[in-house]
């Protein structure tokens, strides 16, 4: 699993770095201009987010540079941290202890091992079929019937979202796309870039022009202006990056639209869970962003869809 570094990768990485320099400069300029307290708080949050982005880009870049295995390890770790936040927020009981141990230390590593050896036939069904059936069996053997369905559903949901869905990001490296051999690293980069930039643009559009809230009970920050502006811009950016992908410009726009729409949905769903549990963020891991789950909510929902769309339309199987 080696990824070649070609001219296009260079442009992608260069573009992202230029963007980071640009937003760092903007943040610095804003910090000099803003005087009101609420404005200062916004700018501080913006700058904290930018700093966190530098770190995240560095880590992601490093993982890509080590070839496929680095990316698999990075996303395994991401899954681990996200699942940890998710289960922490979810009330489980004593009787779930052993099945949780299985989830963290056997199913999660196994899923990423299957991704690393590119065994599509098993990694695509291991969690939805085998783990789905084995976890409730283990929990039932523990003998605690109270809220059984609810508890089991929560553990399985966490596993699906935090492990199964996230693992589809490095799974992009296993696709055999004719004429694109050895270049899948760019596809993964493209996917993460579009999903994350859509988040950023929705945030920026929402902060500047946002008026009409989409679902105020779920997420007060999501507005129609932010949604439309962010999705449109991210789709255009995705279309403009078609040269790095196996897609035509039009197909690339369609793929980006799918990524951004699913990403938006992911953010909304994960917010609803946070509201229900009465918290603002899943954790405190990433400064300005909250926890790991707060940062990857859009990736979770977009990755499996992007993977399967690409697999269906662009691979011969």
């Amino acid at each position, binding site marked *: 699993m080696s990824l070649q570094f070609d001219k296009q990768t260079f442009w992608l990485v260069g573009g992202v770095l230029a963007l980071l320099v640009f937003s760092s400069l903007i943040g610095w300029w804003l910090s000099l201009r803003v005087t009101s307290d609420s404005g200062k708080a916004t700018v501080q949050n913006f700058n904290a987010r930018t700093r966190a982005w530098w770190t995240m880009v560095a880590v992601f870049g490093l993982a890509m540079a080590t070839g496929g295995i680095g990316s698999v390890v990075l996303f395994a770790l991401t899954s*681990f941290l996200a699942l*940890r*936040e998710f*289960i*922490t927020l979810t009330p*489980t009981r*004593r009787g779930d*202890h*052993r099945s*949780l*141990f299985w989830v*963290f230390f056997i199913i999660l590593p196994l899923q990423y091992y299957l991704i690393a050896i590119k065994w599509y036939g098993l990694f695509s069904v291991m969690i939805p079929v085998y783990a789905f059936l084995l976890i409730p069996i283990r929990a039932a053997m523990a003998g605690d019937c109270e809220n059984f369905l609810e508890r089991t559903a929560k553990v399985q949901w966490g596993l699906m979202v935090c492990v199964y869905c996230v693992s589809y990001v490095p799974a992009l490296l296993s696709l055999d796309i004719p004429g694109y051999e050895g270049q899948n690293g760019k596809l993964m980069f493209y996917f993460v870039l579009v999903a994350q930039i859509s988040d950023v643009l929705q945030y920026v559009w929402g902060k500047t022009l946002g008026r009409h809230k989409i679902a105020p009970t779920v997420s007060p920050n999501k507005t129609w202006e932010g949604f439309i502006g962010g999705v449109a811009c991210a789709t255009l950016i995705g279309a403009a990056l078609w040269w790095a992908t196996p897609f035509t410009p039009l197909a690339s726009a369609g793929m980006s639209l799918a990524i951004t729409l699913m990403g938006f949905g992911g953010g909304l769903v994960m917010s609803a869970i946070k509201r229900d549990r009465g918290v603002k963020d899943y*954790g*405190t891991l990433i400064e300005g962003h909250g926890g790991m789950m707060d940062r990857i909510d859009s990736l979770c929902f977009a990755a499996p869809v992007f993977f399967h769309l690409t697999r269906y339309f662009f691979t011969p199987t």
Partner: protein
Amino acid sequence: MTKTLLVALARLVSGANVRWAGCGPEVRQRVYFANHTSNLDGLVVWASLPPRVRALTRLVGARDYWSKGPLRRYVAGRVLNAVLIERKKPTAHDNPLADMLAALGDRYSLIIFPEGGRQTGLEMAPFKGGLFHLAKDRPDVEFVPVLIENLNRILPKGEFLSVPLLGSVTFGAPLKLETGEEKVRFLERAQAAVKALREL
């Protein structure tokens, strides 16, 4: 070296989020009293203190637990500088209160679990009298309520494999024994102070 490693390990396993809500991590004589649900509790509270406070803070543990096997003895004696007390059959010679007072001396702080043992339910057990007697004998010492959350899910009683969830340790505002305050009243107030930290 072992200490640094153990502190890092305790923080990693517990993922503990440490909050100081009511007092700061100052170097002064204190008794930290906490709810008790997991074998990790003592270690994690101790590890969540900053190094200079930690160096002067001793864990009060049950002798029957901490003197079992060479590893526990080593950790209790060499690393935690623990005060081991007899909880099953206290006698005039083997009096937990005297041991705790002696350990406190004029420089050390203590971490104690006034419920007297790990609880498995959601509710805290009534506090034992030792806390009251400590407060009565040492009015100069601050009594800090500590709430430990989620560690019972990370390593519940009776399990030996831990699950990596995120725990939290919250330090509350110090409590003082009021003049003429009765034992029962003070113990209830102390327990309520720990419980109140859940709402933060």
